[in-house]
């Protein structure tokens, strides 16, 4: 298999690069570089800028407001976005519920939800995980009991990213507790987050940041028209979403940008360290990361262009990408010496009042390393992925 960017691809890349020049506000770019959890204001502002250029949902078909670009062009576009430190647009509307709605939803639902997803006026969150479920969707317990034209929702979600930002949630609930979730028991429902029966409790993660939440449902009444697709097909739709994620979850464009920054940082620190850092070890670790990342990119491009070759590939990509993110974050912290144990408060960062007078790249690195411990846990822990590979690829 030969895979090279054509001249046309290169022209496309340059046109994007030109268009993106100076588009990201500098403080927004700095926050992205520093790995701060993006603020809602940043996300909304950037979503609007992208929307105005028709690029909010670059990966969508044209008819729903996307660009209609080829997967390879979308990939190039995302690389260029990452290269200018653009914030990552909120995932849940544009990547998850949007495609779910335009693929399985009614015409009315498309009209009602899609435009606000594109503009960023409505933010979404995803209610999948539950306290008892961990990596196991089959054990979901939240119930949606039909009463007339409504479902009555009771239960609890956990690890709900951006629930504290979100205007709406789409979630999995058991619409039929008589049958197992895999066999028709699950459905996708959409609900407004300001329903009085919904309570959001922040979960502070070990980086002391707030990006995930617990969400409690107490007799939340959802009109039956808020179901996506057919009742009982939630399991299938969840698999559809996971299929969409197989490539994006590798976060290659972002990782490539991080590697550029990491290499710059390493040169700076190596220069300053003047022999007190272990240069060969640093260079070897960078080389290992770069080799793995180049390989990962190639694997993703093969998926993007050639379509999936094996059900185990997505799991392999997840394992490699998550470990790679961790290794990059670990190396970054190792480069900065004793400053790697300083706690940098995001407020200090905004006030630019920083302990240990660090270079710009220092604050956020230690917190980011801590937060990224989660990458080998979430979206199906790496142990789960190994189980999938053993089963799917080898029948073990």
């Amino acid at each position, binding site marked *: 298999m030969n895979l090279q960017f054509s001249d046309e691809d290169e022209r496309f890349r340059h046109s994007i690069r030109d268009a993106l020049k100076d588009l990201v506000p500098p403080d927004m770019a700095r926050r992205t570089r520093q790995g701060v959890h993006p603020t809602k204001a940043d996300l909304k502002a950037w979503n609007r800028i992208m929307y105005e250029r028709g690029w909010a949902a670059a990966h969508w078909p044209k008819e729903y407001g996307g660009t209609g670009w080829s997967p390879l062009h979308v990939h190039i576009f995302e690389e260029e976005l990452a290269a200018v430190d653009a914030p990552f647009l909120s995932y849940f509307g544009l990547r998850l519920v949007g495609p779910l709605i335009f693929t399985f939803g009614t015409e009315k639902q498309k009209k009602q939800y899609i435009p606000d997803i594109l503009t960023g006026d409505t933010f979404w969150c995803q209610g999948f995980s539950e306290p008892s479920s961990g990596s196991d969707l089959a054990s979901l317990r939240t119930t949606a009991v039909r009463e007339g034209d409504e479902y009555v929702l009771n239960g609890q979600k956990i690890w709900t990213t951006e629930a504290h930002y979100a205007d709406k949630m789409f979630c999995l609930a058991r619409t039929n507790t008589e049958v197992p979730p895999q066999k028709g028991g699950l459905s996708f429902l959409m609900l407004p987050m300001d329903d009085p029966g919904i309570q959001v409790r922040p979960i502070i*993660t*070990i980086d002391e940041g707030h990006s995930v939440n617990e969400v409690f449902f107490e007799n939340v009444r959802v009109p039956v028209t808020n179901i996506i697709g057919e009742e009982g097909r939630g399991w299938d739709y969840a698999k559809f979403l996971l299929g969409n994620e197989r490539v994006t979850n590798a976060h290659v464009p972002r990782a490539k940008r991080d590697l550029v920054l990491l290499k710059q940082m390493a040169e700076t620190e190596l220069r300053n360290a003047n022999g*007190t850092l*272990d240069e060969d070890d640093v260079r070897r670790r960078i080389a290992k990361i770069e080799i793995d990342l180049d390989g990962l990119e190639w694997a993703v491009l093969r998926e993007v262009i050639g379509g999936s070759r094996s059900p185990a590939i997505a799991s392999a990509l997840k394992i490699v990408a998550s470990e790679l993110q961790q290794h990059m974050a670990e190396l970054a912290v190792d480069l900065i010496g*004793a400053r790697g*144990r300083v706690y940098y408060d995001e407020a200090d960062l905004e006030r630019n009042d920083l*302990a240990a007078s660090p270079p710009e790249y220092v604050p956020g690195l230690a*917190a980011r390393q801590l937060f990224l411990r*989660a990458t080998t*846990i979430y979206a199906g822990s790496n142990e789960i992925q190994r189980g999938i590979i053993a089963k799917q690829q080898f029948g073990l």
Partner: protein
Amino acid sequence: MLKESAERFVSGEAGFQHTREGIRFSPANWKTMADLGWLLLMIPEESGGLGGGAIDAALLTESFGRGRLITPYISTAVVAAGLLARADDFSTHSALLESIGTGQALVALATEESSSRYDLNRITTAAKRAAGGFTLSGEKIVVQDGAIAGHFLVSALLEGKTTLWVVDKDAAGLTRRAYRTIDRAPACDLSFADTPATLVLADAAAPLERAIDQARVLLAAEALGCMEAALSITAEYIKTRTQFGRTLSSFQTLTHRVADCYVKCEQLRSALFRALSLIDAEPRARGAPASAALITAIEAGEFVCGQAIQLHGGIGMTEEYVVGHYYKRIRAIGRTYGDLAYLRRRYIDLTQRSA
């Protein structure tokens, strides 16, 4: 006896389980530690201490690790007290040492600078003779326990030599920027502008290295405590947590991971015992095992406490739960008295290059 008393202390009022709302330095705990006679444990009897050995202190720090205690024990009671006890002019500093013993004085060691990377002699802070004594000028960063200390032991260059000074927190020309570290320990940066200082050691390189080797070994003991606690909590957790209709402990991958963690703990225990046995040997024979113990602690600790998070899954990632705090303490331990790069280089210099 010391061991039991330490364990009682940690599992009683002091440990993480009981201070979860605000995991931070507790003056009350410190007072208790003073009352128990722990703060001058390693100081020779002739200097007013208990004349205990590093093995005794390691029993304490291992317990502190287990209880995830935020305490300036190592910085104040081991490093600072140890250096003050060896002061060129002991009489000048005996009162401060005594106050450490009663728990009234907290003394932090300020050696690290913006580009020292743990090398005690790679500093620019300078001492200078001034009217009526000496002053210091320069900057120190990430002073362990500096935010709560009343005095600082500060390294500075004088006539090309590394010297050690004591500075009062309220001294003229001293600016302190207090903050905390990822493990919730109090720290600070210090900036000296012609700040009056009193000499402790005119030739500080060797005594500093010795004191910090002790600190390294005791940090390794604390790391062992963290790892043991994190591992035993994890082993219990996987026995009860169910997934896919089975307890996690029915998945062999996870139980074998626990076994790997156990092996790492045992490796650290051996490296630690070795370093403790050689802690009073000559610098080369002391420095290599001390570095080896901390290297092992950092590597094994990253694995064990990292896997404690991994095996817990999501809950392990939360600030509310305990295993993440063990992990963060290990991360901080690995960046206090040397990191892997520094310690490995030092170990190699001591063992693979001719003297």
